[in-house]
């Protein structure tokens, strides 16, 4: 493997400028002088073969960059935004903000079950949500809410007009914060048999079983035998 190839590969794939000393760490055989020599070889090759990029020295080292004369093409390329749709995860997060605003990142992540930093960033960049204050509690988290642009885009005159269809998941229909909701879920429903996660003694267990449904009168099959 020649020095210039190694140096080129590293500069190409690196996301930050590198000094000759840093580049030299790629291989025991390399040292700063050899890296400098390789950089000179590359500069000459790029010039001779008319590459669209060049080696440029920046504050912290060297970097591969497109030549300035190609800037207009890049600009033109950029003017048509590639992405005009929102990803599924972004839509989910947006729905959560819409129905549960103002809401913190932590709460969004609790509902979605995954890290949501990226999608929140996208929604902020799109100006569909905004930081709308800070909540109580640890670190006083930023709370997000939907924007004017959001309402314009979907054509709602105000937040009161946000449709709340039946099929929305419970977490979006309820207004309670997740912690409270989680507590509610654990409260046994009225009329449901006493359930327990605690170990029952064998006698208690038998008593509970026999007390519950009576031994002779089975329910109409709900739950029976379908536990597998």
């Amino acid at each position, binding site marked *: 493997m020649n020095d210039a190839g190694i140096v080129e590969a590293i500069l*190409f*794939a*690196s*996301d*930050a400028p590198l000094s000759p000393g840093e580049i030299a760490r790629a291989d025991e055989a390399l040292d700063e002088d050899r890296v400098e020599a390789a950089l000179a070889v590359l500069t000459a090759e790029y010039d001779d073969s008319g590459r669209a990029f060049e080696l440029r020295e920046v504050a912290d080292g060297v970097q*591969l*960059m*497109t030549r300035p004369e190609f800037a207009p093409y*890049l600009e033109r390329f*950029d*003017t048509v*935004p590639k992405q*005009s*749709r929102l990803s*599924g995860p972004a*839509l*989910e997060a*947006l*729905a*959560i903000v*819409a*129905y549960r605003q103002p809401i913190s990142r932590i709460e969004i992540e*609790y*509902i979605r*079950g995954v890290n949501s930093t990226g999608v929140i960033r996208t929604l902020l*960049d*799109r100006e569909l949500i905004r930081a709308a204050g800070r909540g109580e509690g640890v670190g006083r988290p930023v709370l997000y809410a939907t924007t004017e*642009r959001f309402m314009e*885009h979907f*054509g709602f005159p105000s937040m009161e007009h946000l*449709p709340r*269809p039946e*099929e*929305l998941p419970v*977490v979006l229909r309820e207004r309670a914060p*997740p912690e409270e909701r989680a507590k509610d879920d654990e409260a046994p429903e009225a009329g449901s*048999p006493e*359930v*327990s*996660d605690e*170990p029952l003694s*064998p006698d208690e*267990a*038998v008593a*509970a*079983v*026999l007390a*519950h*449904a*009576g*031994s*002779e009168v*089975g*329910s109409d*099959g709900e*739950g*029976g*035998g379908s*536990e*597998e």
Partner: protein
Amino acid sequence: MNDGFLVVETERFHGPLDLLLHLIRTQDIDIFDIPISLITRQFLAAIQGMGDPGVDEAGEFLEMAAALVRIKARMLLPSPSGEEDHDPRAELVRRLLEYEMIHEVAHRLRSAENDRGRRFGKGYTEPRRRPHLAEAPLHVTWDDLLAAATRIEPPTEGEAEHRVTRRAVAMTEKVDLIVQAVRKVRRIEFASLVAPWRDRIHGVMTLLAGLELGRRRVVSLRQRQHFSPLWIYPGRGAGGSGDESMLSADEPEYSYAGAGEEAT
């Protein structure tokens, strides 16, 4: 009885099918004629050796164990008319083969991923005056948003931390429960046996215990049709013995160690 005993590192497996396939493939067993008794014993021994798996994971292995025991039970029973040609193992075989194919595809994907991992894209791209993202046309309808909203599944309990601390449920406990219950009453519905507990694992363990006791003819299980109530009756082997520990937790194969009528 120990001829089928294997030591298996359960953590290595991505689930019950993975473990089952491993048992079959490493022993050169014909997948189209799986010796269900042997495999069930090995499977149960392997999951009993599991360290301290999460409740959900244990539940999945136990569901498979229950399915194996059920297949075994069906093979013992005379087939109801109209189903004579149906081997109870057929669906399991189909699943195992499908799983094996997926396993192989996953293996290919891994090597493609490794190849791809040896190639590196452009690390640094110059800062460009990217168009203000908010100005970009947005093709999203309210229906798209609602569709995404309805996809949200509320956090499942399985992901909550407190689940981890729950205790495992021993099959011996359920065996005792069933044996004691049928001693006191003429018959008991399966649903009653699991009602005092909320966890699915209690249901799974109770079913497993019931099937095992049924196999040993300590109890008999009757169900009129699919999804109708499952009733448990005392069998010929129950009631006489004073030994209430029908299964010993130390038995690697869940073999019947109690007194009473030995069925097989």
